[in-house]
């Protein structure tokens, strides 16, 4: 249930479900996200995602018109899939529904079964479908539902057991994902990162335009998930009835460890502990050194940030992770707000702040920026922590904004921003301290050269 006292929404603090699904499908090798709905949805989401990543983001659409809305979108769906097969050579098509097709009652699984039968003579791509009505949940439900659909529909058999770890990283930056993959490689295990937008949404300059960006989780790696030592699923908020990790645990007995997004020392310690537990390998010295440097930085920087009052907002997994981090460096999270209505948000905030704060920060679910701003007047924050959409409020209140997560539309390099593990936290902490020093310098008439 929403904590907002208002019927209307003003400057929403969430995006719609199909956006999350589209972005997740982009993290599969050879895949094209495909929205079953009207043309506008795909175009709007492309624009929104491109503005963050500054990469091509093709999302196909069944482009339903008035006629199809009345008589059903099946023919357009089938034709659209044939067109993306021939034009993009897609090996995976990730079909997500929209409010339009959910409401007119298109039975997508049935339509896809018909499609596979009708065109059985063609080399067909894998088609994964997920139900993402935009009137239900947020982009994070869409993301996690798409990840669950990928695992649920593409992993069909028990694979040969091997030293492999499955990592469902949540919606983190390409740079974060590269860091995760480096860690997994250093543990000496094979890894399936599902999904993996580290390459596909942060491509190098190349000789030619790629129809589909290279990179992404391979089908072989996805199929191998059922033979893995275990899965680690990042993100403490509960979004879907059955997540990818719990699905694999139920069907194939692959142990699933649900953790927070590893930001800050405590959450990252838990992440490395989970890796040690699954692999039996001790954490490589490299990361112990990174941890040591991070603790040293915490010590050197603690007075700059001590007692600062922060409002944290955005998507629920990221908010919980940021609160975990802020609480352990002595920043006071005074409000944790999200547009989502996920049920365990408050409990998760209590868990990550236990032993650090006398009581968890005030948490508000299902709120928008108008709700947050009404409360902010009394809260007198020193700092905002969240994505770009809080900027106009930070400006109005004359407090700095530490930009984290997605989307970053008003700064450069959002796709390369690191948050996770000791290394990412180190960068985040440096940015936070410098944000505060920057403000201090700006506001001081003295013009201190040493801070």
């Amino acid at each position: 249930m929403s904590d907002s006292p208002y019927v209307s929404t003003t400057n929403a603090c969430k995006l719609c479900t199909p956006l999350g699904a589209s972005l997740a499908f982009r993290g599969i090798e050879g895949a094209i996200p495909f929205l079953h709905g009207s043309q506008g949805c795909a175009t709007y989401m492309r624009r929104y995602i491109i503005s963050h990543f500054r990469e091509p983001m093709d999302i196909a659409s069944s482009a339903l018109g008035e006629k199809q809305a009345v008589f059903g979108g099946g023919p357009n769906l089938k034709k659209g899939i044939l067109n993306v097969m021939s034009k993009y050579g897609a090996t995976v098509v990730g079909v997500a529904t929209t409010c339009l097709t959910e409401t007119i009652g298109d039975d997508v699984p049935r339509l896809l079964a018909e499609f596979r039968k009708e065109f059985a003579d063609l080399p067909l791509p894998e088609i994964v479908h997920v139900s993402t009505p935009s009137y239900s949940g947020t982009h994070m439900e869409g993301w996690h539902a798409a990840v669950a659909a990928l695992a649920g529909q593409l992993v069909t058999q028990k694979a040969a057991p091997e030293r492999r770890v499955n990592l469902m990283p949540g919606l983190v930056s390409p740079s974060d994902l590269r860091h995760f993959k480096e860690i997994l490689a250093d543990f000496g295990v094979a890894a399936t990162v599902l999904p993996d937008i580290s390459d596909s949404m942060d491509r190098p300059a190349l000789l030619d335009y790629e129809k589909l960006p290279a990179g992404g989780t391979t089908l072989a790696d996805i199929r191998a998930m059922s033979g893995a030592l275990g899965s680690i699923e990042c993100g403490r908020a509960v979004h879907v009835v059955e997540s990818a990790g719990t699905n694999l645990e139920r069907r194939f007995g692959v142990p699933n460890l649900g953790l927070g997004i590893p930001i800050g020392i405590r959450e990252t310690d838990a992440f490395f502990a989970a890796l040690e537990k699954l692999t039996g390998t001790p954490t490589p010295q490299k990361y112990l050194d990174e941890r040591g440097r991070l603790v040293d930085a915490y010590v050197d920087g603690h007075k700059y940030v001590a007692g600062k009052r922060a409002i944290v907002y955005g998507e629920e997994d990221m908010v919980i992770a940021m609160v975990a981090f802020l609480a352990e460096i002595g920043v006071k999270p005074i409000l944790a707000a999200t547009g989502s209505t996920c049920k365990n948000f408050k409990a998760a905030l209590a868990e990550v702040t236990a032993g650090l704060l006398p009581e968890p920060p005030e948490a508000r679910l299902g709120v928008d920026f108008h709700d947050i701003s009404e409360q902010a007047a009394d809260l007198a924050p020193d700092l905002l922590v969240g994505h770009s959409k809080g900027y106009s409020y930070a400006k109005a209140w004359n407090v700095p904004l530490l930009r984290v997560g997605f989307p970053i539309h008003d700064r450069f390099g959002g796709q390369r921003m690191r948050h996770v593990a000791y290394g990412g936290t180190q960068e985040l902490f440096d940015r936070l301290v410098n944000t505060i020093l920057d403000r201090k310098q700006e506001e001081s008439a003295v013009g201190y050269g040493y801070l």
Partner: protein
Amino acid sequence: MEQGILAERQDQIHRTGEGPFELACNRDSLAGAVSQRACVFCGSRVVLYPIADALHLVHGPIGCAVYTWDIRGALSSGPELHRLSFSTDLQEKDVIFGGEKKLKAALLELIARYQPKAAFVYATCIVGIIGDDVAAVCRDVTAATGIPVIPVQSEGFKGNKREGYTAACKAMFTLTGTGDVSGISPISVNILGDFNLAGEIWIIRDYFKRMGVEVVANITGDGRVDDIRRANGAALNVVQCSGSTMELAKMMQEKYGIPSLRVSYLGIEDMADSLYAVAEHFKDRDPGIVERTQQVVREELAVLLPQLKQYRKDLEGKKVAIYVGGAFKAFSLIKAFRHLGMQVVLVGSQTGTTEDYAELAAICDPGTVIVDDSNPLELSKFVKELDVDLFVGGVKERPIAHKLGVGFCDHNHERKEALEGFVGMLNFAREVHASATSPIWQFVPRREAMAKAAKGEGI
């Protein structure tokens, strides 16, 4: 058949000089073709959005509102209500039981909070399916609040952006004729089809002021509800971006007998011609206006032309691709590029009409590719094949250019540089120059390979 183009799209592409001009357009986008188009709602939203003292409430699930939150650089000299994003954020239960109650409550709540001069209620896809009577709710709320609450029938799937423009024009038309028109000069205009991106309408208004022309209503850049209510008191409608607001001009001509002129404020000739056409229209009533207009143009050119020269010398001979929303803008851009010595080799739009494309074909050089409702794979193919140096488009086209090592000029609604007027031509030249002549292109693999090949070193 062109390689790499879907069979059903072949007739939406034409090369000038190759046979008689024919181009299929104004069709529904092809499923799976990854069109750059948006939807009906998008068309309505972009046209009405800059009306700064109105409440713009999107009736639907959250996406439609959140992806259009403050996306345009449409500036206001006063209220900024348009920069907020309002939604009824329909949930599953609303879809099942209907959203009318929620819409009414949301309207009453927001009108009480912001005291807007009017409210526009945008119907999205789902509203068309669940059958909410948006017009009835609007009538109720008008009665309860005393402000115009206007339904915009912009269900996304009921066509493309064009139908959205029509819905927006119909919505605005209901406002006209409801204000006091006394005291309006006989030498007066409404500015239609300018959205005050980066303050552009202020540049144009300044020219009109120097000519002695009163501007009654900005439609819609830096727009105000009360101005639109008395727009029927103006003597002339000057209509830019004719795709989006020409229909409003037509409706006003029919009902109020106000004539209209098609204008463009982009580039040198079109800007000057537009001002002269307005002067021509009023010269019987105000004989001095022609000379005042010449004076404006002379003063502006004296500043502009010497500065343009320095850019032209570096840009001479470079090749340009244009892909924009409406075809009308492309005419002006082609002429503007000629001033910079650049050659347009590809021109396309999302929503051009047969007449637009025929006119484009007539002014383009032979061999120019003209394309309707294109997509990333086609555009990337043409950019390579035609050896383009600079691409003009919007956010969705930018990565296509950049990935191919091609300069880019953002000429879409999100631009933060004023490109209209004489000063805009200079900004345009500066932006084009900055991108096309950057030293970074030499490092982009495709450019590097081309440079090596040109030197005979092979790849």
